[in-house]
């Protein structure tokens, strides 16, 4: 079952909506598009989305960011704000496919989600499949691990993105590893 705080994440305003005054134009968002569309799409694929859906979610992230741009106050980097919108888009899509009261069993996820991705079919992609299923069950934790993998962030920097203190982030990452382990247990023989 999805953690309760995912609901809060969907509902809460994205990072960056703080009272600090700033003015960001659509051109600034457009400048991020060539670099950040691929990043978001690749993240969504890592979470188990097939390519077409990953591209659609990346595009939708930019659409929502553009619509929400007047509310962006510059409290975070624009790219950080965009990332948090992307995560909300992913969680909303996940929730649409998997209502909270329908799935407790991890084995149900493949049928409900996007296991038809060609890049997840090969036997050597056991770890990748495991991570994708983990991302569907624990999307916030998967986001934290992915940002750590992709961004090379220090604990404190990652904490700013996921809304935790440095110490809490350290503990959280260790918990994420423990939560991920069952999803990779079948990969030990791969």
């Amino acid at each position: 079952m999805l953690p309760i705080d995912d609901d809060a994440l969907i509902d809460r305003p994205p990072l960056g909506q703080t009272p600090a005054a700033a003015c960001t134009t659509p051109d600034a968002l457009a400048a991020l598009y060539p670099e950040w569309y691929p990043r978001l799409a690749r993240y969504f694929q890592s979470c188990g989305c097939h390519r077409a859906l990953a591209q659609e979610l990346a595009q939708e992230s930019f659409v929502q960011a553009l619509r929400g741009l007047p509310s962006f106050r510059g409290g975070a980097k624009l790219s950080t704000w965009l990332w948090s919108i992307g995560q909300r888009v992913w969680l909303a899509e996940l929730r649409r496919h998997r209502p909270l009261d329908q799935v407790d069993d991890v084995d149900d996820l493949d049928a409900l989600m996007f296991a038809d991705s060609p890049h997840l079919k090969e036997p050597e992609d056991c770890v990748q499949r495991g991570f994708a299923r983990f991302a569907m069950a624990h999307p916030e934790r998967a986001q934290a691990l992915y940002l750590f993998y992709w961004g090379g962030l220090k604990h404190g920097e990652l904490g700013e993105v996921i809304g935790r203190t440095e110490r809490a982030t350290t503990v959280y990452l260790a918990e994420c590893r423990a939560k991920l382990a069952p999803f990779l247990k079948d990969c030990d023989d791969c």
Partner: protein
Amino acid sequence: MTADNTDPRDEAWLRGLAGVPADEAHVADAAAGRRLRASLDRVPAVEAPADGWADVLRRADQGVPAALPPREAANGHARRWAGGLAAALLLGVGMGGLWRPAEDTQWRGAGEGATDAHWLSASPHADARSLAAALRGWGATVTESTSAPQTVWLDIRCPAPCDARVGARLAELETALAPDGRLRLKVSDAR
């Protein structure tokens, strides 16, 4: 990348995940982290479409709800009660006749025509987008267009040999491709 108060095995694993050298005392943990990193590295890259930003501008513009004309706003108070009563009656009749406890309870519609189906949805944009993404994932070509704020048209093309999952998904929505592999599907607001 260092942090206090963490298990050194976890820290070695995280360093492996981040692709930086780890303490040799925890080789296995670092290797496990590197293995996850290697698997994530295998996720194929995606290029930004050339006209992608133009599409963002178009969609962001279309998604803004139309402003209520001033005259409508002025008369709205009196009509709200009558409208609400009518909506409640219609909803009651509709729910009684159309309720199905399946996945697509939000999908409603005439759906009789194979070439120009009409579905009513509580969230037409999101449902249309999700359906289009699924169909594209199975090889169909889907073009989305919007004629009104809460109406989305999907022009679906899937000539033979078409992935059977396309037909199966459309069958769940009580419609189907025409013999030439085409379907024009209108998704509009059920509320």
